[in-house]
């Protein structure tokens, strides 16, 4: 069967929309701006990331996230009065989970569904400097590498029987960190060499194979984000 690259293949949202949504979510969900005034938007922003996961057919991750969210939300609500210090600390922890989880899911969604190439092009159109976008795209690329490497090192430690008891915390850290950084540093050297022989450079014009443009879903999300900010400003300065 003949292969034809589908240049329009992309996830539901444009990278720029994803970042705007992430920004909005950080402000209103994590930062809790507007508080009660933003009630409706708050809940939309909390559950939107899960909806996005479902659209990407990540059923399991989506359901687990919802379960964790609801569990910690109600657990935290039930811990209300006459709390011991321990209970209040627990409540604080649960509260933090309910704040962080939606944004964390959104961040994961963005990393999983955004192509490096697409991201570089989208940022370039917004005139964001390469000096930020190249490192960010390397982070995308490198998270899984760091995970792979540390898993492998962890295996080696288990196999060699140098799993640590409490008394040897320093070694536990040293034995993990040293091979990890050594490996990553070597991979990094080779990665830079490979990228540079393929013409990657700073501040030069790139083209992008992917057609990136705003579609209907982008319009909805962008409108939502704008309304959030407008509603917040109205609430804050005019009422």
């Amino acid at each position, binding site marked *: 069967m003949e292969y034809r690259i589908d240049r329009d293949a992309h996830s539901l949202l444009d990278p720029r929309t994803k970042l705007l949504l992430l920004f909005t979510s950080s*402000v209103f969900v994590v930062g809790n701006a507007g508080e009660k005034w933003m009630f409706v938007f708050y809940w939309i922003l909390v559950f939107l990331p899960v909806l996005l996961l479902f659209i990407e057919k990540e059923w399991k991750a989506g359901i687990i996230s919802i379960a964790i969210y609801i569990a910690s939300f109600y657990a935290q609500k039930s811990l209300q*009065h006459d709390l011991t210090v321990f209970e209040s600390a627990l409540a604080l922890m649960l509260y933090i989970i309910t704040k962080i989880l939606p*944004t964390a899911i959104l961040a994961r969604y963005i990393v999983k569904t955004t192509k490096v190439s697409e991201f570089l092009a989208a940022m370039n159109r917004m005139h964001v400097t390469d000096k930020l976008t190249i490192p960010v795209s390397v*982070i995308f*690329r490198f998270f899984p590498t760091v995970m792979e490497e540390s898993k492998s090192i962890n295996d080696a430690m288990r196999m060699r029987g140098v799993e640590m008891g409490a008394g040897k915390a320093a070694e536990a*850290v040293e034995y993990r960190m040293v091979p990890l950084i*050594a490996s990553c540093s070597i991979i990094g050297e080779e990665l830079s060499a490979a990228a540079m022989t393929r013409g990657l450079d700073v501040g030069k014009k790139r083209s992008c194979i992917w057609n990136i443009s705003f579609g209907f879903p982008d319009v909805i999300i962008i409108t939502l984000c704008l309304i959030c900010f407008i509603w917040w400003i109205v609430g804050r300065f005019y009422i």
Partner: protein
Amino acid sequence: MNNRLNAKDLINVGIYTAISAVICCLVAMTGVIPIMMVLLVVFVPILTGIPYMMFLTKVKKFGMILILNILMGALMWVTGMSYYALIVGTITGLIAELIYRIGKYSSKWHGIIAYAVSGLYCWANYIGIFFNADAYFSTRQNFGQDYIDAITKMLPPWMCPVLLVVDLLCGVIGGWIGSKVLKKHFEKAGIA
């Protein structure tokens, strides 16, 4: 030598940001034990010192430290800390950049101090709790006063400067450990 940042420098920034971020994440996960919340300013600076000192061996041009800090701040922010991390991170990154520059991008102690200063984005995460404590809890009035009292007992306002100092000190310790490990391992192995 050319003083413009090239692709290699930026890739290095990305790599060490990724390593530091993974370590931060792992430490933050131990936040299951609530007291760890406060101890973040102890463990993050101590543990990220090792990759950071390795990173500094790659820094020879202006801008790399600053970019790493901006990215760490931004990552902190989007993963649910507070935007103070980004603001403070940018400022301290710039200061650290200047400190390390004074050390001609090679001095060990300038590096350690630069690390301690740049690591203050970690402390910045608490600013929200201290300065906006009322706002922080007012949305959650169903928590009741007891709860808020309990939390404020754990984090009284005077803790704010204390944590700052703790963060700085741990930064120095972490940087010092990092430079020890660098000498013990990476320099000896010839990869730094």
